[in-house]
């Protein structure tokens, strides 16, 4: 049941404990207890809005930045990963398999912001050997939410 609670919250963090209790057919106090535990155990790491930034013109640009890194003896990729994730421009950091090592999602207000950030901050890190920046042109789906309106409900209002 704890897992079911988690699944529902990951779909919509605004579900109240009461909503979840009703949907799962369990006591509200049970749901509240699960949520408290999940938060304490750091399994739930936060609750944030899914924002369609494109609706707010000129305030949001993002890019995927690939980094090639020389891993340090004994530290592997940890040192550089920890360094890059501390920047507020960096939204996500992933260690990758395949052609490059670290994948970053970087955000800024303009293309230039990001370009400068990559050139000045990321490319200059000692163990970073190369960078490749791909600007996001359009966001279709974010955190499971379709931002480009998909199919409308075409069922009409009544059908017996």
């Amino acid at each position, binding site marked *: 049941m704890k897992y079911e609670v988690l699944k529902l919250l990951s779909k919509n963090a605004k579900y109240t404990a009461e*909503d979840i209790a*009703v949907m799962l057919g369990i006591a509200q106090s049970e749901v509240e207890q699960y949520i408290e535990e999940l938060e304490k155990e750091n399994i739930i790491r936060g609750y944030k809005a899914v924002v369609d930034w494109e609706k707010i013109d000129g305030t949001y640009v993002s890019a995927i930045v690939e980094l090639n890194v020389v891993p340090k003896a004994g530290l592997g990729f940890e040192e550089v990963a920890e360094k890059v994730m501390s920047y507020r421009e960096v939204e996500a950091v992933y260690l990758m398999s395949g052609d490059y090592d670290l994948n970053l999602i970087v955000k800024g207000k303009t293309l230039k912001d990001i370009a400068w950030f990559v050139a000045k901050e990321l490319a200059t890190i000692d163990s970073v050997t190369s960078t490749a920046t791909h600007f996001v042109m359009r966001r279709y789906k974010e955190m499971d939410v379709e931002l480009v309106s998909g199919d409308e*409900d075409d069922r009409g*209002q*009544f*059908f*017996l």
Partner: protein
Amino acid sequence: MIDYGKVLNKTVTDIKPSGIRKFFDVAATMKDVISLGVGEPDFQTPWVIRKAGIESLQRGKTKYTSNWGLVELREEISNYLNRKFNINYDPKDEILVTVGGSEAIDLALRALIGVGDEVIIPQPSYVCYEPITAITGGVPVIINTKAENDFKLTAEELKSAITDKTKAVILPYPSNPTGAIMEEHDLVTIAKVLKDTNIMVISDEIYAELTFSGKSHISPASIPGMWERTITVNGFSKAFSMTGWRLGYACGPKPVMDEIVKIHQYAIMSSPTTSQYAAIEALKNCDEDVQYMLKQYDMRRRMIVSGFNKIGLTCREPKGAFYAFPSIKSTGMSSDEFCEKLLHSKKVAVVPGTAFGESGEGFVRASYCYSVEHIKEALSRIEEFLKEI
């Protein structure tokens, strides 16, 4: 000038158009309506099913099939019914693939009913049984099932409706609109009444996959003594979210099916080929998809039932299908009045219970084929409405 009054079949012109048609038409012209009015799933047909349909088209499978339907599909239906509901039908001559469950109901009634024959129809129930019976020249005999019996058909009600002219009984469970199901002990008592009669059962099991609270659907044909007198109707629309594919099936004893297939052969030829190929995939590989959808429906069901009760509209727990059927008697309004006022003042669309028979008076049907967020919004508007009246 042609006089259409003289041209048209009187039996057909005598069928009154559903009274709520007008209400629906008004609603359709309104903007920003939050509807709980539809009777079909909001889920997409699972992708593997759509893909199977596409691939059959790519392979050029676009000819008629056998009148009975594709052999492979009939075999899968046979396996499925055995696996799920413990009933056995020979794919060779006891299973007919039809254009939706609707055609199967039409065929069953036309094959059984002649002029003056009586068909027992429990209501509130789906809207097609009465007019189709009338078109065949038969006489609908309505049983008004009761809320206090959870809208189940009782043996006593059935017994008192049977006459010398009774040819068939419709068993429309799980029920649209009430959500009622018939459990094994209920069906056993029905079987006792029908034993040693020449009365057939047309069991409309289109919602068979959609039962809740740990209650599985029981097929009447699985009850001892019932197989020989039952035409089992089912289909793909509700369980697999395939309403637009128009595919269902009728199953029954060979002597009955031999006649039913004749009507199908002359009226329809064969059911849509693409849909048949897609349906094979549905039966073979979609148990998980069905389970997923069922789980979503169950959460919505709890949400809507609890919501109605909380705002003061008594709502029994629907154990099957995907409708809540709350009582609106506490408002003092008729079902029609309630629905009309709710639509105009809060732009929420629900269906008056009377659309499903007189015994639906005092109730409305609210479908929960919508997201939880949609349902919550509708409920909060209904709550406002109740406070204002």
